[in-house]
């Protein structure tokens, strides 16, 4: 994150206040238990010209929505402001912001020149009468204005929590329409907050479980385009796709990239038996990694690429196992009551998220990579398929409602179990996969 911030730092024309140590009072420990959201204010960004007034207001709105959406911050409404910010470089009137109990203050300026958008911002620790960190400037396209807002919010979140941000990220998912017995599915991609939905395929074949490459430029998914389930790789920028594997008499599904970006781990079914395989995308070389008569599927690499977590019913029911990436002896890590599936290794490497079925209910949960400290975050008729935010602190998943009118939608929840909320999508949605932070 530090490197990310530095690389974006272009420098402000004015002298910035020296950096305040991050162990100051403006701090949220997001691993704490129940917390009181921190009040903050984001006045409309100061426009360079009257033509920039609207985008200054829009940017403030998205920054605020990002921060409030975490459940860790609470916006002080602009109607409560005593004074506004009319000059980005003028000294901040701390007393006016203390009076409305805004602990954090985000100020900014915006200017546009042709298609180029320039945003500057500063973060203030109001009750310390000091700026927190240095001012930053971001430059991008006017069309990509929401990303500028997400970058500002990521920097604010990161400075206050000490964690990496996750707002400037995208989610690929399966967009669903129609009733359960005639459901049409197509791949889609959107910003993490549901904005800017684009469709990557049509709905002429069933498509399942898209997964991002480590740098977000490609998506692996499963499609019935040729009749049987096959793995495809799609270039997000170009929307070009190709099939990866077509062995006669088999089906392949549940692909994920290795952290190296050129190996794919997946399930292949032959003669009714499903095992885990890897493939080198460039050469097409396939290596079998499990050889049990049971079902082995839903593999996911550890972030260092050394291990694979997967599900297997070799014990009689679905449970989670970890094995070396090259295959070999697997260690069972799930021992609670019920069935465990769809394990996903956290990008931080410290936890594994999973779907659990127990007593007719579905849960999204997390556990340490050795299976200890299991914690269930949700419960419903059908919760499934967790995916991690880039900072490993938030999980998105799909929830399907019960009955003939059942509909699937996306939700997110903190790994503490707090802040469960729906993610807006234009239609039904399932199988979300979160991208890494964008460059």
């Amino acid at each position, binding site marked *: 994150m530090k490197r990310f911030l530095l690389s974006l730092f272009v420098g402000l024309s004015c002298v910035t206040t020296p950096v305040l140590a991050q162990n100051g009072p403006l701090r949220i420990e997001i691993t704490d238990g129940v917390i009181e959201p921190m009040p903050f204010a984001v006045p409309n960004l100061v426009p360079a010209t009257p033509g920039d007034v609207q985008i200054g207001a829009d940017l403030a709105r998205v920054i605020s929505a990002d921060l409030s959406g975490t459940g860790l911050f609470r916006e002080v409404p602009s109607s409560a402001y005593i004074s506004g910010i009319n000059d980005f470089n003028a000294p901040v009137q701390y007393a006016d912001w203390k009076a409305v109990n805004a602990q954090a203050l985000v100020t900014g300026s915006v200017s546009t020149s042709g298609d180029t958008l320039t945003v500057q911002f500063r973060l203030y620790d109001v009750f310390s009468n000091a700026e927190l960190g240095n001012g930053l400037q971001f430059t991008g396209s006017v069309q990509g204005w929401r990303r500028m807002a997400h970058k500002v919010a990521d920097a604010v979140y990161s400075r206050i929590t000490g964690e990496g941000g996750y707002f400037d990220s995208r989610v690929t998912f399966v967009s669903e329409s129609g009733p*359960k*017995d005639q459901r049409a599915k197509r791949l889609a991609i959107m910003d993490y907050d549901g904005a800017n939905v684009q469709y990557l395929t049509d709905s002429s074949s069933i498509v399942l479980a898209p997964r991002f490459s480590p740098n977000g430029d490609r998506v692996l998914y499963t499609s019935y385009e040729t009749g049987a389930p096959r793995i495809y790789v799609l270039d997000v920028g170009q929307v070009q796709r190709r099939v990866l594997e077509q062995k006669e008499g088999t089906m392949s599904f*549940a692909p994920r990239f290795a952290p190296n970006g050129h190996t794919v781990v997946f399930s292949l079914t032959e003669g*009714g038996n499903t095992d885990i395989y890897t493939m080198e995308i460039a050469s097409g070389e396939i290596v079998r990694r499990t050889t049990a008569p049971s079902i082995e599927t839903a593999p996911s690499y550890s972030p260092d690429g050394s291990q694979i977590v997967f599900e297997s019913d070799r014990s009689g029911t679905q449970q989670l196992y970890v094995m070396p990436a090259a295959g070999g002896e697997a260690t069972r890590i799930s021992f609670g009551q019920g069935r465990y599936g769809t394990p996903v290794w956290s990008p931080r490497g410290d936890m594994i998220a999973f779907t659990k*079925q127990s007593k007719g209910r579905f849960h999204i949960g997390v556990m340490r990579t050795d299976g200890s400290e299991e914690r269930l975050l949700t419960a419903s008729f059908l919760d499934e398929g967790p995916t991690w935010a880039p900072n490993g602190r938030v999980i998105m998943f799909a929830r399907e409602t019960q*009955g003939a009118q059942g509909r699937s939608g996306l939700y997110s929840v903190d790994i503490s179990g707090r802040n469960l909320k729906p993610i807006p999508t234009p239609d039904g949605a399932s199988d979300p996969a979160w991208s890494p932070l964008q460059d």
Partner: protein
Amino acid sequence: MSILKKTLMIGAMVAISACTNAGRFGDDAYGSGSAGSGAIVPGSANDPTSTAYFNQTVGDRVLFLVDQSNLSPEAQLVLDGQAKWLMTNADYVAVIEGHADEQGTREYNLALGARRANAAREYLISRGVAPNRLKTISYGKERPIEICSEEACYAKNRRAVTVLSAGLTG
């Protein structure tokens, strides 16, 4: 047992008339039967060489218990009939579609559907059907025929369906 079998058949027929397979045997109804005479309309359910007859009278599907892929005695009876029919009507090939109910994760259900389809295929082969006439595919929980969230619907969705097409000789 015969009552149970009848129940299964009726279930299957309701399902067929309700949805996915209607188009299939509708399309195949022309030209797949022998030349008609008398009361038997070629391609109709009265024509024992038709896909309609296979689907409705022989029974095109077998059902499974929760998370199971072993064949019940009832399922074996249906498959015995399918094998006999396929041996007699050698022009047909079949794709056996394995399905699961919605109570399970997507990947696991794909693998489970594959197990079910394969169990039916292996059984048909054991009864003499040539392996190269039988393919399998799994839809997991992607293609339920009943959409309620109760066991009555789940029981019909946990199935392996033998879908015929005019094959080897076209």
